[in-house]
């Protein structure tokens, strides 16, 4: 997804990002049905490019085969790929959504949504990335659309059809 030929070209085909996946570039990107996972976007307004990832867990514990799945491997990787396209950390702006708790019960991985959100925040701070806005927590599923070519807008849609920009 770091294909230079696709840069700057308006491409209406929306890239769908599944659990643990990520994309980098200027195309519209979308991830559906975030529950306890986090949809994180990074955007460079000067270059009008960005990245989106659907993070499932805070820690990779040494696993490297699916870097987009974990906060601690996803964020450095996105920064590296954006860096290769000319983005500087200090010019990147982050937005995030998700981290909900869909079920009230169940016990092997308590408050995973909250832990995901906390880990992402700690890492963004560590890499000195500004977190511009967030919509985290609650008991609600969220789909997120990210439009790097159009000012990096991030729109959330819920099951009841309501939408808002963050």
């Amino acid at each position, binding site marked *: 997804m770091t294909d230079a030929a696709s840069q700057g070209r308006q491409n209406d085909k929306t890239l769908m990002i599944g*659990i643990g996946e990520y994309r980098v570039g200027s195309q519209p990107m979308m991830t559906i049905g975030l529950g306890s996972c986090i949809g994180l976007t990074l955007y460079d307004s000067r270059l009008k490019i960005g990245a989106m990832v659907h993070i499932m867990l805070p820690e990779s514990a040494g696993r490297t085969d699916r870097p987009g*799945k974990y906060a601690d491997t996803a964020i450095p990787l996105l920064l590296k790929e954006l860096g290769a396209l000319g983005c500087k950390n200090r010019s990147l702006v982050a937005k995030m959504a998700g981290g909900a708790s869909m079920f009230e019960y169940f016990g092997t991985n308590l408050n995973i949504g909250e832990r995901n959100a906390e880990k992402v925040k700690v890492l963004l701070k560590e890499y000195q990335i500004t977190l511009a806005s967030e919509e985290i927590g609650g008991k609600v599923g969220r789909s997120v659309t990210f439009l790097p070519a159009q000012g990096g807008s991030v729109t959330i849609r819920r099951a*009841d059809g309501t939408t808002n920009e963050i």
Partner: protein
Amino acid sequence: MKLSVVQADAIQELGNIGAAHAATTLSQMLGSPVEMSVPSIKVVDIANLGTVMGEESAAMVAFELQGEIQHGGFILFYITRESAVRLTNTMLGLTEMNRPMNEMDESALIEVGNIMVSAFLDATAELLGFIMLPSPPALTIDMAHAAMESLITQMAVEVDDVLLFSTELVCEEHKIDSDIIMMPEHSTLVHIIELLENMMKGA
């Protein structure tokens, strides 16, 4: 996680028996016939979960599999929001479709899920001689993908793919379409297959 044809057949038969019992209880609650599909078995990569469950609004009553196993995976009663309203309308004697779901609906859905999943697991326990009990139920009425990913995240052993074993239960008269979906932990699946294979050898 790959199943041989024989293993898949055995699991399918197990699902047939479980779902038939669940269908009977649903039929009794609705007072009308309920048809069931052939159980389907899918191994789904988590990145492609969206191809199985998307943004559709659905009610899910989820249970952790417990009993002789500690964290055995999950089993859930899945019903689209529209069917869920029809189901509770039928049970509560209402007709209005365009209404928000309230506590009465939630209690009714949890009760239906509880009865059906208990019937399913009773039947499989009898067949396998291996007792899986449902945890207390948890309900969510929201985007199907969001609910499912949250359950996958709570599995005892972290996974990149899940085995979804589902049977569709349909009541034509009231236009109610629902599924019972089992998502076992890998170790639970291995154990169930072992038991089934031993049964077949003994037969």
